[in-house]
């Protein structure tokens, strides 16, 4: 049953050193505030799972928190590469990073299988693709009816998933809308699901019946963090801060500049600082 908690407590209660953790968001609704709180609390040896690790995993990897990354596209979306992740993979800085790399189709199916309580997912994939050679977690299954050989990957079952959503109601049910990405699957695939939301409303009585709602008993903790997805966006609340993504490319290019930026913008800040960062992005049409 969802508990409403301050973000610092929600993170402290649900994340542990050595956990397999997903901070999910497919471009939209990226749980930046939760990731920054995890950085402030200094967790170690994390296995970071995400289809599209972007700035927040670049930051966590750069801060030396990650033992391993499981992903399908490690880029700064629309901008370029992730320079802290590159530094870890290419130069072992700040330390070596184990990687398990998949395609989007594989990761999406793996989360889906995790939410569905299955040990693996099967799909038509990786045909002719070299990832199947370098990733031992890409195997195959033969269809017992047609003999077709399909790709198989293990399901993703994180210890904890963090997502950002538009809103919760007072009972703790959570609404995700717009580009819903992989959020529902990531939350349901995990042992514990922590959600940051833009706001809490009285009830969901007027919501359309088929929207993506996580019932309160499928959520572990909820923290109210307006702006908590910045520089990503929250459909209906504020727009994507594209300038910040462009700026990150320069910040992450230099080890010292990265540390300084993290000190100033993450370590010395709190979840309360996010609201101000999205003020100029709220002029909704």
């Amino acid at each position, binding site marked *: 049953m969802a508990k409403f908690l301050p973000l610092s407590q929600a993170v402290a209660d649900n994340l542990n050193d050595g956990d397999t953790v997903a901070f999910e968001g497919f471009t939209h609704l990226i749980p930046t505030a939760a990731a920054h709180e995890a950085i402030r609390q200094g967790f170690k040896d994390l296995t970071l799972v995400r289809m599209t690790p972007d700035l927040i995993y670049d930051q966590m990897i750069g801060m030396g928190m990650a033992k391993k990354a499981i992903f399908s596209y490690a*880029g700064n979306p629309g901008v370029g590469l992730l320079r802290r992740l590159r530094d870890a993979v290419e130069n072992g800085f700040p330390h070596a990073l184990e990687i398990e790399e998949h395609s989007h189709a594989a990761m999406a199916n793996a989360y889906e299988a995790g939410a569905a309580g299955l040990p693996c997912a099967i799909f038509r994939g990786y045909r*002719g693709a070299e990832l199947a050679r370098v990733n031992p977690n890409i195997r195959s299954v033969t269809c017992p009816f047609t003999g*077709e050989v399909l790709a198989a990957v293990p399901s993703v079952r994180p210890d904890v998933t963090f997502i950002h959503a538009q809103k919760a109601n007072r009972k703790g049910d959570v609404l995700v809308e717009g580009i819903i990405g992989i959020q529902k699957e990531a939350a349901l695939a995990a042992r514990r699901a922590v959600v940051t939301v833009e706001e809490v409303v009285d009830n969901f009585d007027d919501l359309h019946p088929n929207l993506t709602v996580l019932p309160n008993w499928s959520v572990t903790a909820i923290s109210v963090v307006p702006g908590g997805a910045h520089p990503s966006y929250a459909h209906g609340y504020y727009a994507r801060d594209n300038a910040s993504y462009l700026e990150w490319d320069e910040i992450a290019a230099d080890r010292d500049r990265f540390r300084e930026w993290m000190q100033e913008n993450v370590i010395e800040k709190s979840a309360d600082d996010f609201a101000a960062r999205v003020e100029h992005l709220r002029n909704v049409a």
Partner: protein
Amino acid sequence: MSELGFTPDEMMTIAASRALKGDDVCFVGIGAPSAACNVARLTHAPEITLIYESGTIGTAPDVLPLSIGDGELCDTAVTTVSVPEMFRYWLQGGRISIGFLGAAQLDKFGNINTTVIGDYAHPKTRLPGGGGAPEIATSSREIYITMAQSKRGMVDKIDFYTSFGHGDGGDHRQRLGIDTKGPTLLVTDLAIWKPDPDTKEFTVVSLHPGVTRDVVQESCGWTVKFADTLEETPEPTELELKTLRDLKARTDAAHKGEAVGAKRGSKDG
């Protein structure tokens, strides 16, 4: 540019856009493919269905998205589905007529590398990886590729097979049990290429205005084959150029930080 009135990059985008038809269902990669697909939509193919891997189906953005999941894509889509549904029902389900991809490294058989430069375990440069491309490349009915030419990008042997094109050429796809056509078109900033019917090697079939065979060869890492009868790509029309430039101008303005408001959602809950 000055003498021609358009840049090679503009010619590339416009030539690529012309290959798309109104009844195409196009899975759009970011960057050059996104511009070409939207120019097609805004000119000769208004009914084209554009799909981005973020789950937005039938989207009609007013500005080009910076990422594959910008709010603009959802705001203007016919419907927005989850990512598992996108890859299962819409891509793997065989509903995509054209998968439109870019490439960091490309070989003459349309195999694409966006994973690493150098050895996978100890890469010289770690690139973002495949994302949706490995399955776009094999589940879409055919694949269009667009990229600016360079010897670094168009290489004799790619470092990693992120997405399978025609493999070693010939019937390599069929031998792997892949029943889709694979790359059928490559549009660069200099030329239009199509695979040879038998060998599947990309062959230049049309040179963009003012481009010579030598220029094409100088910026390509393999020995270029040219078709017997080589056409010249028609220049961009006034409408095409204006459409592309207006789109880019709107996009630049938007990406400098002007908020594009979210138009639809539940404000009542």
